[in-house]
Each structure stands twice: as C-alpha cells, then as structure tokens.
C-alpha cells in the first residue's frame, strides 16, 4: 500500500496512469452532466412555491459542495507536500486551486441569483454566505501567495501552509447553518436522515453532484498532467516521451 502511494507519487508514473484514466473520467463526467441537466432542468417538476427558479439548485449545490471539497483536497495536498516533499502533491495543488476558486464564485453567484426570487435580496450577511465569501478570499490568497514568491519552491510551500491554516473555514461553512439560525437551508443529504426533498428533485440533484465531481476529477487529471510536463520538461523521461511522440508523428 505504502509503496503503491510512493510509486504514484512519481510524476512519470502518475502521468502514465492518469493518461489512461483521463478519457474515462471525461466520458463519465459528460454523460452524468448531460443526464443530470436534462433530468433536472427539463423533466423535474417546478417547485410549488418557487417555480422554475428552483432549478438553480442543480448548479448551486454541486458547486457549493465542490468549493469545499477542493479546499480540503488542497490542504491535504499541501500537508503531503510539506511533510513528505512529494512534488506531485504540489503540482496537484497548483492545478486545482483556480478551479476551486471558480466553483466558489459560481456557488456565490448562483446563490445570489437564487436569493433574489426567494429571499427578495441578492445578499444577506448570514453566516453561511459570509463564510463562503471568506472561502473565496482564501482561495485568492492561496493563489496570490504562490505567485508572489520569485522562487517557485518557496511559493509552493508558502501556499501549502496557508491552505493548511485556511482549512479551518470549511467546518465553519459546514456547520454555520446549525450554529446560527439563518435564512439559509440546512443540509439535505445526510447519512442518518432521509432527504427532505421529494425524490423527483433529489435524484437528479444527486446525478448532477456526481457529474460535477467526475468533471472535477477529469479536469484535475488533465491539468496536473500538463503541470507535470511544464515542470519536468527537462527531465529525461519527458524528453524521451516527447521524442517518441514527435518521432511517431514524423513517421
């Protein structure tokens, strides 16, 4: 098990494995997203109270969940990089941070768009919304800190440390609805309770969530691979690989 992890930690091996996984992930992501969109946006019923605006749910919830998961992954990768100095972890972190920021932004925007018809305002300063906004700034900080250092290695370590410190915000987002009485909806999915939505709504939602996660995995694989190529461009295995593919093309 330990050896397997270390083997995967080698960029060359990860590059090859990810290359094989990547098309499957993309295919799965596209299939799930298509199915989920059709189901959620076309076939699922409109809400009796909210009308068609409820369909924002199918974008809002997956992006909100991803925004948090990506940060946790970012912090985990940071920890691995700082402790064991596995470069691959940092390449992964560099590859996924902008995507996490984008998801956070999308969750905020979709939430705001949804807020206008349901709460009558774009924005309120409730705990969940605020902690989500903070999350966006944490992402921006992690990204900016990496770029601010001239030495790439130091920038990577600094942003890993910040991700580790900033991860405390994730539980705050998660539990904000329980700790403070707020406007925002409490969790729908739980391991111990049945969902509080009708199945015709939460089933397509589940498909959308799965689709977004598959999309994330596919994108992470692809971006990490290109990050590997960029950073390892001078190592032997990359040069050999490039020689092989260009040789093939020449033939």
């Amino acid at each position, binding site marked *: 098990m330990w050896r397997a992890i270390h083997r995967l930690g080698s960029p060359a091996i990860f590059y090859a494995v990810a290359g094989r996984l990547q098309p499957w992930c993309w295919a799965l992501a596209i299939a799930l997203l298509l199915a989920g969109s059709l189901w959620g946006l076309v076939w699922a019923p409109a809400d009796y109270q909210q009308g068609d605006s409820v369909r924002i749910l199918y974008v809002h919830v997956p992006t909100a969940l991803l925004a948090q998961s990506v940060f946790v992954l970012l912090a985990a990768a940071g920890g691995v990089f700082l402790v064991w100095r596995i470069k691959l972890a940092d390449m992964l972190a560099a590859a996924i941070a902008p995507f996490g920021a984008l998801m956070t932004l999308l969750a905020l925007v979709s939430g705001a768009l949804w807020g206008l018809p349901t709460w009558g*305002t774009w924005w309120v*300063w409730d705990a969940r919304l*605020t902690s989500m906004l*903070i999350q966006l700034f944490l992402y*921006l900080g992690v990204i*900016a800190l990496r770029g*601010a250092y001239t030495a790439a290695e130091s920038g990577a370590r600094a942003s890993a440390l910040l991700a580790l410190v900033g991860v405390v915000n994730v539980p705050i987002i998660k539990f904000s609805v329980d700790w403070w009485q707020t406007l925002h909806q409490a969790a729908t999915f739980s391991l111990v309770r049945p969902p509080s939505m009708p199945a015709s709504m939460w089933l397509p939602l589940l498909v959308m969530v799965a689709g977004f996660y598959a999309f994330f995995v596919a994108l992470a694989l692809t971006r990490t691979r290109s990050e590997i190529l960029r950073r390892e461009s001078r190592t032997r295995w990359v040069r050999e690989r490039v020689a092989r593919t260009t040789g093939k093309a020449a033939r």
Partner: protein
Amino acid sequence: MGAGDADTGLATAWAATLGRELRRAGRRRGETLAPLTFFALVIALFPLGLTVQPERLAGLAPGLLWVTALLATLLSLEALFRDDHADGSLEQMLLAPQPLAALVLAKVLAHWLVGGLPLALLAPLLGVLLALPAGSYLPLAVSLALGSASLSLIGAIGAALTVGLARGGLLLSVLVLPLFVPVLIFGAGAAQAALVGGAFGAHLALLGALLALALLLAPWAIAAALRIAING
C-alpha cells in the same frame, strides 16, 4: 564627452517612468490586485461586526465604502517608494537631470491607474452587497475615481516623508489621514446625496477642485519630501 544640456528628454523620461511602474505592477499581479481584495474584504467585515438589519445597511453604505476605499489607498501608498528606496533606484531618480516633481507625478499616476481607478469600478459591485440602490452607482464610482486621485497625490507626500523609516506604514497613516478628511467629506457626501436623491453635482465639483489643487501643489511637496527623506 560633453557637459550636456540640463533639460532634454523630459517626455522620454516621463513616459519611461510611467511604463516602468506599470510594468512592475503587472509583473506582480497578486500584489497589484491586493488593494481590491482588501477593499472587498473589509466591506465584508463591516456587516459582520455591525450586525444591523439589511435595510439600515444601505444608509451606511456610502460612508463605509468611502472609508474603506480610503483605507485601501492608504495601505497601498506605503509601497509607493519603499522598494525603490531599498534598492537604491529612488536615489538614482533624485539624481536624474529632470524635474523630480514630473517624475514623481508619473509614479503617482501609475499608482492611481492600478489602484484608485479599479477601486472606483469595483465599488458599485460591493454596493450590491450592501443593498445600495442602483441609482447611486454612477455618482459613487465618479466620486471615488476623482477622490482617489486626490488621495493618491496627497498620500504620496506622506509616503515620501516616511520612506526611510522602518515601520513607516503606520506613521504614514497618522500623517496623511487628517489630510484625507476633506476628500472624504465631499466624496462620501456626494455618494450620500445621490442615495437620498439629492443633488450631488456640487459635491463632485468640489472634489474636482480639490483634485486640481492637489495636482498643482502635491508634486512639488512630494519632490521636496523625497529630497529630505533620502538622508534619513
């Protein structure tokens, strides 16, 4: 090898200095965006600290936005001359055969272009978060654009005076905050007037007059301050 003329090529030097500043700002995008992020962050802090109802927030919005924009400008001022001083470039600029006031103006212009102007453009967006009505967006942005230019000019005097000092940042605040007060009063006044549907033209005209005055006087003051501070 000639003892050349003193005042040739001011245009070249001016354009090169402006270009240099913009290039430096572009090179460290993270740091250039920091005033904007700071602006947005502090605006997010106020509702958390104040715990007021949304409808009352709108009434406070122009003042909060203005005070925060002022603080963001203040913070970004500290770096205006600091690096140049540390690496010796500032000394070289003082020794250039060009009017120092002109060169300094190029630096301040660059500061406003990457700081104050984007701040003014961002303000309406944050206004949304503070439940500001749409009608007051334009006056808010215009007042901030005009006002932040004055703030950059005035603030640069303070930045120049404190450039050689460690912990200059805070001393700088203390020096320039009182000078910022007139700009704040007219600027926030314009935005507030627009909010309650009043006439904001007079406030904006006053802001413009302040800017003209600052443009006339500040460059000389900055130049003089730099010549003093360099021997700190």
